[in-house]
C-alpha cells in the first residue's frame, strides 16, 4: 500500500482545491453549497500568507453600479485593455457574475465606500466611464482590500464544512489514464507525504512572481500550479505576458512598495529620468503618467536600459510640483498608512524629495487555457484565478479585474467540479506513480552534496529580470533559453538540501519550487521568442510595433519532456478592433454580437 516506501497519509474527497487565495476560497464555498466533500490546501497559513489575495490594494471592478455601465461596457473596456487578445467568451462568462460577488462581499461583512446606500466607486485606469467602476474599502488608504478579505473570508468559511489543509505543499497531480484523480502533497507540519484521492481537482495556486527579483505580491508564488498543469500535459497559453508596476527602489524601507504608482494615481505624480525629462511623453503624450500600467513600466524599463537612471538604478517619481497646501493635506490623509509610516521613518518629505522607482512583477498572465466552465482540457482538472490566465486577460490585464475574476471563476469551477464529482465513483490511483513522485521529491534531500537553491536562484532571477522583462531581444531570449536549459540539465539533478529533517524544511520546498519555476521560465521564454511584435505587456526591442498578423494566442503543451507550441487566431465573437487598428491603446471596439448568456442583476439600476 501507499505507506510502504514512505510515511504517507491518504485523504479522500470529492473536490480537492489546491490553493487558498480568494479563488480557492470562493470555489470551496460553492462546492460546499452543492453538498460535496471539499478539501482546500494552502502552502502556508490560510488567510495569512501563501497568497497574493491578502496584499490586494484598493480596487474591485464591478459593473452595474451606474445605470449606463453594463456588462457590455465592462467587457469592451477589458478587451480594449487586453489589446483584443482576450478569449471573449470567457471575459463575458466571468464578468457576468461580478455584481453578485460584490453583494457577497457586503453580506460577509466587508465595509466599502458607500453613499446613500449605494456603492461609491472610484475611477481606475482603463475605465471608460468617468464615474468609475471600482468599489473600494471604506478605510482606504488606511486599510487595503487585502485586509478586508483576510478579515471576512475566514469568518465566512468557518460556517461551511470545508477541510483546510494548511502548510501543505502540493508536489504533483496524480493521473489515471487521461484524467486527474488527485494529488501528492507534503504536510510541512507533520513532515509526511499526503496523498489526496479526489474526483475533481481545482488549481488555484496564483502566479509565478518568484521568477523575478522584486514582486509586489509574495515571492512564494512560484508557478506550482502552472508546472503541475504542464506536467500532466494541459493546454496553456499567453506566458509571454507578465504584468509589472512601478514600485519603489529607494529609500530602502520602501523597496517593492507600490507607493510610486499610488502617487501617480492619487497625487498627480510625475516621472522623470536622470536628465529631468518626463519620458512618458514618448509613450503616451496625452495621458502621460496616467497611461496604462504596461506603458508606464515599459517607459521606466527603457530609461533604465539607456542608463538614464537615478543612483539606485531607477527613475524618479515626484509630487513636488503640487502646492504646499495640497501636499500637507494629502500627507495628513495618508500619514498613518503603512507606506507613509515608512516614509516618515526614512525622513522623506514629498514636497521636496523624490522616490526612486523601478518596476516589480505584479501579475502573471500565462496559464491554463480554460473554457468558460473553467475546465482545462484534462478531464477532472479545473483551473481558476491567476493560474487560469491563458486567455481571460489578453495582452494586458485591466486594473482591478483580477479579484472579481477570481470570485467569478471560483463560483463557476466550484459548481462544475462538484457536479462532475456527483456523477462518478471515487477513482483509483496509481500507487507506482505516487512512489515515483515521492522519490523525485525526496531526491534533493537524499543527495549528499551538490548545489543549494540559494546559490543558484539569485543569478537565475537576475537573468529573468534582465532578459525577459521589457525590451526583449532575439539574442537575449536565446541566451536566456540556453541558460535555463543548462539549469534544468546541470543544476536540477544536483540540487541538494543539507538539512535532512522533513518538518518545516523550507529549503526543501524552495528546491521543489525552483524546479517549477524553471519549467515556467522555459514556457515564458519560448512564447516570448515566438511573438515577434510588441503588444501589451510583451515588449520586443527588436520588434517595437504591434504586428499585422498577431491577433493570435500562443499555446504550449509539455508532452513527455517535449514542448508542443502552436498559435490560435483570436475569435472576435462579440467585439472586433476598429478598421486599421492593431489593438493598441485608444482603439475602439466594434460590436458584432449580443451576449445572450446568463448575467447577474446590476447592483443599483432600478433600485
Amino acid at each position, binding site marked *: 500500500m501507499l505507506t510502504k516506501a514512505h510515511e504517507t497519509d491518504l485523504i479522500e474527497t470529492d473536490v480537492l482545491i489546491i490553493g487558498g487565495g480568494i479563488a480557492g476560497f470562493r470555489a470551496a464555498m460553492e462546492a460546499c453549497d452543492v453538498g460535496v466533500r471539499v478539501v482546500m490546501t494552502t502552502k502556508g497559513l490560510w488567510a495569512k500568507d501563501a497568497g497574493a489575495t491578502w496584499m490586494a490594494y484598493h480596487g474591485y471592478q464591478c459593473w452595474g453600479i451606474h445605470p449606463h455601465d453594463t456588462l457590455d461596457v465592462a467587457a469592451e473596456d477589458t478587451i480594449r485593455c487586453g489589446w483584443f487578445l482576450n478569449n471573449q467568451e470567457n471575459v463575458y462568462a466571468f464578468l457576468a457574475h461580478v455584481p453578485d460577488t460584490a453583494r457577497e462581499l457586503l453580506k460577509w461583512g466587508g465595509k466599502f465606500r458607500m453613499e446613500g446606500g449605494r456603492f461609491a466607486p472610484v475611477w481606475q485606469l482603463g475605465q471608460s466611464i468617468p464615474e468609475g467602476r471600482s468599489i473600494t474599502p471604506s478605510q482606504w488608504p488606511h486599510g487595503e482590500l487585502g*485586509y478586508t478579505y483576510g478579515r471576512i473570508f475566514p469568518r465566512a468559511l468557518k460556517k461551511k464544512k470545508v477541510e483546510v489543509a494548511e502548510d501543505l505543499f502540493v508536489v504533483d497531480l496524480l493521473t489515471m489514464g487521461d484524467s486527474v484523480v488527485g494529488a501528492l502533497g507534503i504536510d510541512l507540519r507533520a513532515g509526511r507525504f499526503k496523498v489526496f484521492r479526489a474526483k475533481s481537482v481545482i488549481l488555484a495556486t496564483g502566479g509565478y512572481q518568484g521568477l523575478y527579483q522584486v514582486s509586489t505580491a509574495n515571492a512564494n508564488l512560484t508557478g506550482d500550479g502552472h508546472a503541475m498543469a504542464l506536467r500532466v500535459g494541459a493546454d496553456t497559453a499567453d506566458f509571454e505576458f507578465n504584468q509589472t508596476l512601478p514600485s519603489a527602489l529607494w529609500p530602502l524601507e520602501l523597496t517593492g512598495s507600490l507607493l510610486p504608482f499610488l502617487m501617480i494615481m492619487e497625487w498627480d505624480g510625475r516621472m522623470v529620468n536622470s536628465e529631468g525629462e518626463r519620458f512618458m511623453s514618448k509613450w503616451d503624450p496625452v495621458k502621460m503618467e496616467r497611461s496604462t500600467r504596461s506603458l508606464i513600466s515599459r517607459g521606466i524599463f527603457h530609461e533604465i536600459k539607456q542608463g538614464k537612471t537615478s543612483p539606485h538604478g531607477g527613475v524618479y517619481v515626484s509630487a513636488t510640483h503640487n502646492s504646499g497646501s495640497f501636499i500637507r493635506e494629502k500627507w495628513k490623509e495618508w500619514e498613518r498608512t503603512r507606506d507613509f509610516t515608512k516614509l516618515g521613518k526614512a525622513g522623506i518629505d514629498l514636497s521636496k524629495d523624490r522616490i526612486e522607482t523601478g518596476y516589480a512583477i505584479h501579475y502573471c498572465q500565462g496559464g491554463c487555457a480554460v473554457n468558460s466552465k473553467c475546465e482545462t482540457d484534462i478531464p477532472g482538472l479545473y483551473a481558476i484565478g491567476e493560474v487560469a490566465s491563458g486567455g481571460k486577460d489578453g495582452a494586458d490585464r485591466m486594473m482591478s479585474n483580477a479579484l472579481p475574476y477570481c470570485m467569478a471563476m471560483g463560483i463557476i469551477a466550484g459548481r462544475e467540479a462538484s457536479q462532475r464529482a456527483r456523477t462518478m465513483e471515487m477513482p483509483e490511483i496509481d500507487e507506482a506513480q505516487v512512489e515515483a513522485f515521492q522519490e523525485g521529491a525526496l531526491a534533493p534531500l537524499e543527495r549528499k552534496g551538490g548545489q543549494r537553491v540559494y546559490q543558484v536562484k539569485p543569478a537565475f532571477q537576475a537573468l529573468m529580470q534582465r532578459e525577459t522583462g521589457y525590451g526583449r531581444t532575439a539574442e537575449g531570449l536565446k541566451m536566456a533559453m540556453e541558460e535555463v536549459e543548462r539549469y534544468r540539465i546541470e543544476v536540477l539533478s544536483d540540487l541538494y538540501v543539507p*538539512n535532512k529533517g522533513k518538518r518545516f524544511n523550507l529549503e526543501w520546498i524552495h528546491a521543489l519550487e525552483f524546479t517549477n519555476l524553471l519549467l515556467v521560465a522555459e514556457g515564458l521564454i519560448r512564447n516570448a521568442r515566438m511573438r515577434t511584435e510588441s503588444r501589451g505587456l510583451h515588449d520586443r526591442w527588436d520588434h517595437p510595433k504591434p504586428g499585422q498578423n498577431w491577433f493570435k494566442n500562443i499555446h504550449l503543451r509539455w508532452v513527455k519532456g517535449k514542448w508542443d507550441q502552436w498559435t490560435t487566431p483570436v475569435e472576435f465573437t462579440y467585439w472586433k478592433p476598429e478598421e486599421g487598428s492593431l489593438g493598441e491603446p485608444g482603439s475602439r471596439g466594434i460590436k458584432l454580437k449580443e451576449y445572450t448568456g446568463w448575467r447577474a442583476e446590476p447592483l443599483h439600476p432600478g433600485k
Partner: protein
Amino acid sequence: MSTMVQEDLATVHLFRFDPGADLDPRYSHFKIPYQGLTVMNALTYIYENLDSSFAFRWACGKGFCRCCVVSVNGKPVLSCMEPASKIMRIDPHPKFKVIKDLIVDFDQLK
C-alpha cells in the same frame, strides 16, 4: 546583502524547540551583519548561510500578511518590518503554542 560587508556584527540568540523531539527549549547563537537589514533579513541570512535547520515563517516581506510575527527581546513584532538591532533574542510569539522553533500555531493559545 552582498553590499553588507561590515565589521559591525549583531549577536543573535535564536529560540529552538521541537516539542515532539526536545525536552527543553534552547538557544542557538550567531554573529551576523545587521545594518540596513530587517529582522526577517537577519533570519534569512542565518538560514541561507549559517544554519538551515531552524523553522521560521516568511511570505510577503511588506507587513501585509502577518505570518512572520516573532518576539524580539521580549517585544512581539512583524519580523519583516522591524529593523535588526545589535543584540537580538528572537523568540516565537509568546501567546501561542510552539510547533517548531519560531513557528507557532495561531489557532492555539499557550
